[in-house]
């Protein structure tokens, strides 16, 4: 299959992007300044991420759709306010995670943002579960960009007036060049920011305007170091079908009310794990010194017993040191537990730590 290009491909080239293939797309891994500078620029100013490879699934419907989606997602969608978003999962019956996603209630139904590598499979699963009762569009005509970092609100508001009044995890329709754009105050970097869904033909113009106002394009390389410092999971690495939301330490994202009813896909396992505990759980891991423990690094306890594995690990530019997360046996998951990481045949000391590595600065508001 030929690799796809996003509508910003030309702009990426103009900004000297280095490309990698990611989930069937040619995506910028970094630009000329490099991952560390891009990472810091996002933390200190404002960075723009092309995330158009991600799926934008619009499902159209009313009360019936809400009921049907509540059988799938562990969320209270009935009480979710219009234009508000929630982080959630598409699970199988064993509560294994098919995908993690953001679902937003719109005036016509729901908008679900899906991971690029999962979107086609998610669409198939959801279509089957919803028995083709509702119109579903995995919209390829719209691009998605994120603008993240402390200056983003000011910069985006200069171009699209009113966005600065959005609260965290809520959105609305705005206008750019007379085009309807859907903007939510959200992101995946640990910074305040926005995600903008806009017609493919207009994304280049909008992005260039944001660059003119002082923001910069940031590649997937810095996106990864930013999200890991923020303690956020990457599907296919920290989350997959062999892990449940409880094991992933994401039970905060499951509605308590829905657990008490237990009528969603995977609820039996979720309830059992919440009551009985889990055998493995996701934790933050801070290596001592500078050694970087990457994905698949084995974790040992002080008696040299293999207790788990790293699922994401890199150098954190804002932490100025190595950062990692992974799964360990539940009895080793307490903060400050000493562990050892096997890197290139040698065992290096590390400790279990709380997440995030870098403190969030989301804008909170009345909900």
């Amino acid at each position, binding site marked *: 299959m030929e690799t796809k290009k996003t509508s910003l491909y030309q702009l990426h080239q103009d900004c000297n992007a280095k490309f990698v293939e990611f989930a069937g797309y040619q995506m910028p*891994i*970094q630009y000329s300044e*490099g*991952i*560390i500078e891009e990472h810091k620029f996002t933390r200190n100013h404002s960075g723009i991420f092309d995330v158009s490879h991600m799926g934008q699934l619009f499902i159209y419907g009313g009360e019936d759709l809400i009921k049907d989606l509540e059988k799938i997602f562990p969320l209270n969608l009935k009480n979710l306010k219009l234009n508000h978003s929630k982080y959630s999962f598409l699970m199988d019956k064993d509560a294994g995670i098919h995908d993690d996603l953001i679902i937003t209630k719109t005036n016509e139904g729901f908008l679900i943002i899906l991971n690029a590598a999962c979107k086609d499979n998610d669409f198939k699963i959801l279509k089957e579960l919803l028995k083709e009762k509702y119109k579903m569009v995995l919209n390829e005509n719209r691009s998605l960009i994120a603008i993240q970092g402390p200056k983003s609100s000011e910069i985006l508001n200069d171009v699209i007036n009113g966005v600065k009044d959005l609260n965290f995890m809520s959105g609305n329709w705005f206008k750019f060049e007379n085009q309807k754009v859907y903007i939510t105050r959200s992101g995946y970097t640990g910074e305040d920011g926005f995600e903008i869904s806009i017609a493919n033909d207009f994304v280049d113009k909008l992005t260039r305007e944001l660059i003119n106002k002082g923001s910069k394009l940031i590649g997937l*390389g810095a996106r990864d*170091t930013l999200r890991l410092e923020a303690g956020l999971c990457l599907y296919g690495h920290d989350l997959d079908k062999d892990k449940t939301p409880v094991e992933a330490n994401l039970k905060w994202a499951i509605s308590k009310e829905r657990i008490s009813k237990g009528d969603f896909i995977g609820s039996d396992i979720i309830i059992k794990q919440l009551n009985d505990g889990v055998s493995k759980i996701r934790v933050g891991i801070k290596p001592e010194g*500078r*050694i*970087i423990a*990457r994905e698949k690094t084995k974790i040992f306890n002080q008696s040299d017993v293999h207790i788990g594995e790293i699922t994401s690990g*890199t*150098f954190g*530019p804002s932490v100025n040191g*190595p950062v990692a997360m992974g799964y360990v046996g539940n009895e080793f998951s307490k903060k400050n537990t000493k562990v050892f990481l096997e890197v*290139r045949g040698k065992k290096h000391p590390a400790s279990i730590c709380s997440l995030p590595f870098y403190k969030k600065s989301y804008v909170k508001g009345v909900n």
Partner: protein
Amino acid sequence: MSEVKYSKEHEWIKLDGDVATIGITQHATEMLGDIVFAELPEKGANVEKDGTAGVVESTKAASDVYTPVSGEVVDTNQAIVDDPSKINQDPEDSAWFFKLKIKDPSEMDTLMNKDDYDKFAKETSA
């Protein structure tokens, strides 16, 4: 002092008497991106031509550093271990990796000169 020679693994080597200074090339650092970790061989260790003699890691991945000639490690550059970003800043001079007392000067003849290396680097990254 002899001319600087280059390996296909993107190391440079400069011979002064029977002691060679070895590092990675500017081209290598451009391919790697921001270097955030460096591991060097132990002083006194004997290393064999084309064998592993260190590691560099960028934010993206880890890569082995090879030695272009055989010899005994007589010195290592702690400054790049303490601050690996120095490797990006000055790879072909102050950010050298290690010094070897070389075993067999004829091994130098198997390596490329600057023009050949520049051509090789251009071809392999195209």
